[in-house]
């Protein structure tokens, strides 16, 4: 039953990379400003669009801003939106999906209708309308918009799972004892959904980081906030690709790709936890088996 999540190379890599970016988001801005003495917003007029150098390890932008400092500052923005968006989305999908599956009937139908409504809504145009209406969209607002429009798929999954778990005998048996619905949901049904919820959260994290970048690229963002998305958008506006300023847009793009990969790799591990059939024999087990076979086959006295 016990399964070592970290005995798996994929998961270890994912956790290390994601952990690195989380630390970068938390401690990075302090590190760049005090240790390296770089300011993400300061304009260094002496070095405009300069390639990587000793003073600016990742070069500078069109406006003379340091790219390294911006990437580090952007990590905070992007990771913040990623986590907040994923939390909002996951919480809503749990609140809607699990009761929908558990109660069924009228409650279930109503909640399911709500889910379907959000599933078929044309999300992108709506976000533009909403963002235009709200104006001055800060990162918190962006994260909420991403979360509020991105929970429906997860809610469907949770509804189906909750429905199947709720009808199993052990839930009926605990109801027979007189357990309340609230306790049945939280102690009997929910623990069976943790795997799904964890993988939904990681999926939501990738989705939110990407969505933030995408929205920023399309102009829905806070122009004063720095995130990887706003960096790429600024680079695009100043035709960085045409002018060959690769150091401006490659680092944030790479960071987004790395966070996405890391979350997906952790997700593999979580999937294997939830579905043992996906597990491949670890190298350690294979080695041990081979060693045992060798000993067994070795002629005696050798």
């Amino acid at each position, binding site marked *: *039953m016990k399964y070592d999540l970290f005995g798996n190379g994929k998961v270890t890599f994912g956790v290390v990379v994601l952990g690195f970016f989380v630390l970068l988001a938390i401690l990075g801005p302090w590190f760049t400003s005090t240790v390296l003495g770089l300011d993400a917003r300061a304009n260094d007029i002496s070095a405009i669009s300069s390639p990587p150098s000793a003073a600016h390890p990742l070069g500078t932008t069109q406006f003379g801003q340091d790219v390294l400092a911006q990437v580090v500052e952007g990590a905070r923005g992007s990771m913040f939106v990623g986590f907040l968006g994923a939390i909002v989305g996951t919480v809503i999908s749990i609140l809607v999906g699990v009761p929908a599956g558990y109660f069924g009937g009228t409650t279930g139908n109503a909640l399911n209708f709500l889910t379907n409504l959000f599933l078929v809504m044309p999300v992108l145009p709506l976000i533009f309308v909403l963002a235009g209406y709200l104006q001055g969209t800060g990162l918190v607002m962006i994260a909420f918009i991403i979360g509020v429009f991105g929970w429906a798929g997860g809610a469907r999954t949770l509804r189906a799972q909750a429905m199947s778990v709720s009808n*199993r*005998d*052990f*839930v*009926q*048996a*605990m109801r*027979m*004892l*007189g*357990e309340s619905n609230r306790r049945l949901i939280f*102690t*009997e049904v929910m*623990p*069976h959904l943790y795997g799904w919820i964890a993988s939904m959260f990681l999926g939501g994290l990738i989705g939110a980081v990407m969505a933030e970048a995408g929205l920023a690229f399309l102009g829905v963002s806070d122009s004063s906030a720095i995130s990887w998305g706003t960096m790429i958008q600024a680079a695009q506006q100043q035709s960085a690709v045409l002018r060959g300023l690769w150091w401006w847009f490659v680092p944030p793009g790479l960071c987004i790709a790395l966070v996405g990969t890391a979350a997906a790799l952790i997700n593999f591990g979580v999937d294997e936890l939830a579905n043992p059939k996906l597990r491949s024999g670890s190298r350690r087990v294979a080695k041990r088996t081979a060693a045992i076979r060798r000993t067994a086959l070795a002629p005696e006295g050798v």
Partner: protein
Amino acid sequence: MTAPVLEAIDVAKHFAVANSLGDSSVVRAVEGASIRLEPGRITAVVGESGSGKTTLARILARFYEPTSGVIRLDGVPVAGDGIRKRAVQKAYRKDVQLIFQDPFGSLNPLHRVRHNLERAVRLHHHGRSKAALEERVTSLLERVSLTPASDYVDKFPHELSGGQRQRVVIARALAVEPRVLLGDEPISMLDVSIRLEMLNLLDTLRREDGLALLYITHDIASARYLCDDIVVMYAGQMVEAGPKDAVISSPQHPYTKLLVESSPDPHRDVAADRDEIFGAADELGEPPSLIDPPSGCRFHPRCPFAMEKCTTTPPPRAQLGDGRWADCWLHEEGRADELSGSTMTELITRKLTEERR
């Protein structure tokens, strides 16, 4: 006759099923069922698959509200006609507990034995100290012969065998100190080797704690071993009831006779005349659809004694003394003695050959 703890009077349960075209039809899972459960007595409900046994247990456990009829606990109506409150009161849960058929499914694989028992104790006996709770859990495990209790209390269900799990399930039901235990085929999923232990455990509970037990089974032999009374169900209706030995040794309803004769009997010399006994077994027929049950007596399409009357009018209940009754026209017609004659297989074979002629 002592007063019943739990009593169902003329309960029925209909399920609406809709097909893909949206037409709905009604499955008459249980109709006109009455049963009394008395303290210290075990009542068996026997019948083949689909006869409504499990539905009956679930009505009594109040997972389903009866479509009509009344359920009484200590003479007080708790469900059925005229009772508006649908929520099951905690008091009812404290008195009536259900044991599920599948011990592998009725324990949450993520929770230890301790969780199951502690929740049951906590729900109905508030304010126990930690030590008292621990003591209660230990005594419950000892009650169902899981000793030493410390070996079992922190185990997960997957670390236990089927028999041990069913014991935990029973201990959990006992934790609320119920007065009625409903067993829905509690031994059918267990290995043959531990069935007897389970039956003895149920018998001990009945004798020492004075529990009223409902034992649902399709296995006549275990019913005969454990029970005091037997109720026979066919196609959602009760067809015969009475003390176990009387019902099994001299069935007063053709279906009971068929059921008793269908169960393997080691004393019967099968090798000698296998064909004679099982020759027409394939042609004994199937239980009817409960969406559109046969008119009159529901058993008449399969019954070798069937008369004209049986196809049109449901038979009246014939009281046969000593708490026995049977729903069959044979008793009204004075043909009851025919039931003790030749075996059902012979009768059916004879009937089939006559029809062919």
